[in-house]
């Protein structure tokens, strides 16, 4: 199973918004780039995940649709 949340590392420049919006799933490494958890997103956090995807200034965050 792939991660539902993925980052496009080419577009990502390390703004860090995603980690603030969704700290349960995303942490920042020592250079400011996102480390995304392998855990599936709990239903309660799905809305925040969608917001993180929309708010990313580089549109680097992707939410993979459930099949």
């Amino acid at each position, binding site marked *: 199973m792939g991660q539902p949340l993925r980052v*496009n*590392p*080419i*577009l*990502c*420049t*390390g703004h860090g918004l995603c980690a603030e919006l969704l700290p349960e799933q995303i942490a920042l*490494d*020592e*250079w*400011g*780039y996102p*480390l995304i958890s392998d855990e599936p997103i709990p239903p309660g956090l799905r809305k925040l995940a969608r917001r993180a995807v929309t708010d990313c200034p580089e549109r680097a965050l992707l939410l993979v649709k459930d099949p």
Partner: protein
Amino acid sequence: MTGSTGSVSAGLPRLLPAGGRPMELTQYLQSHGPTPYRGGPRTLIDTIESAGLTGRGGAAFPTHRKLTAVASQQGTPIVVGNGAEGEPASNKDKRLLWSSPHLVLDGLQLSAEAVGARQVHLYIHRDPHLLRRLQFALAERAAAGLDPLTVSLVTAPARFLAGESSAVVNRIEGGAALPRFTPPRISQRGVSGAPTLVSNVETLAHLALIARYGAGWFRALGTDQEPGSMLVTLRRADGSGGVEEIEIGPPIAELLRLDEHPAQAVLVGGYHGAWLPAGQARQLALHNSDLHPAGAAVGAGILAALPPDRCGLVESAMVVQYLALESAGQCGTCLNGLPRMAAALSQLADHRAAATARSAPDDLLRWSSLVERRGACHHPDGTVRFLRSALTVFADEIGLHHRGRCRADTNEPFLPVPSTAPAHKHDWS
């Protein structure tokens, strides 16, 4: 299905011309007969599946699955022969294109027929001699009316990542030879959005022979799981070596003549491969069933034996420095991690400075975990594999360096690492 299985021996050499001289078109057609077009798409794919051909570009992906994946997409496919090996320690693709261009060009046309492609490209590094040779070969074929599709020759910069499949696609589209983020896979959306088959030139050459002589012929060499022959680039401890064609699976000790030219360690798989201690390497054969459990892989068949009088840390540090400079620079983790790893390893490699680099091994392991699988391509992953193997295999050397000593007797670099200047030359033959 025409096949002259009986008239060609199943032994070596298969890809490289016997006698070593490059094969011109007339001679080629005399030896191998005309290109055995099937008359329609997909009909070759079953033969390729029976033959068990896997990609010779390093990933060893089953070729029939790649062909099927591209053929089954919507849209007219495009086929690319990838001859830009990028890896400084490898010369096999250059040699193959020089000596047996018509095998590769046949493979290109046959695979295009198999997937229903209407465009073919041949992708090579910017080498004026090779370019002229291929242009001549293509002109010969055009004069003889051999190729249904016109082959477009596309040149690539001499960069390590220029041969990465998505970089190939970008370059053919007219952009820089830099990797892309996937999805979508290039088999689905590649050059100009069309499903694209990117195949190593050696794979195409094997395909051209299998199309003539059949799966059984191909399987007469090699093992059941890894059939056929392959090209390898060897560097023995005495500096001898070069490109050879072998049956898959001989003992590494035999290939590198480790008895005559002892080594302290063997690098298997080039600069994205892994070091093995000589003792372990001596017990292994060059096929994946032996190598995978040892943490290595056959890859593109690059083997280098490190002589006892060199320092493995210095050699590895030079390689990691090169790999760091060859980063595409698109992904933050690779851009931040690789140069730091190169600097830390260089510190360890300098036995006069290593005593102060106490945290370097820990830093290296931490950064390795941070960059793995977080880039758009596999450059950080391969670099980490190489680096981790160096830290393991040369652990004793690290200890020596911490005490201010080094085992090396000479300053001369052993592994071919290009300087950072854009034009680099490396000569094996």
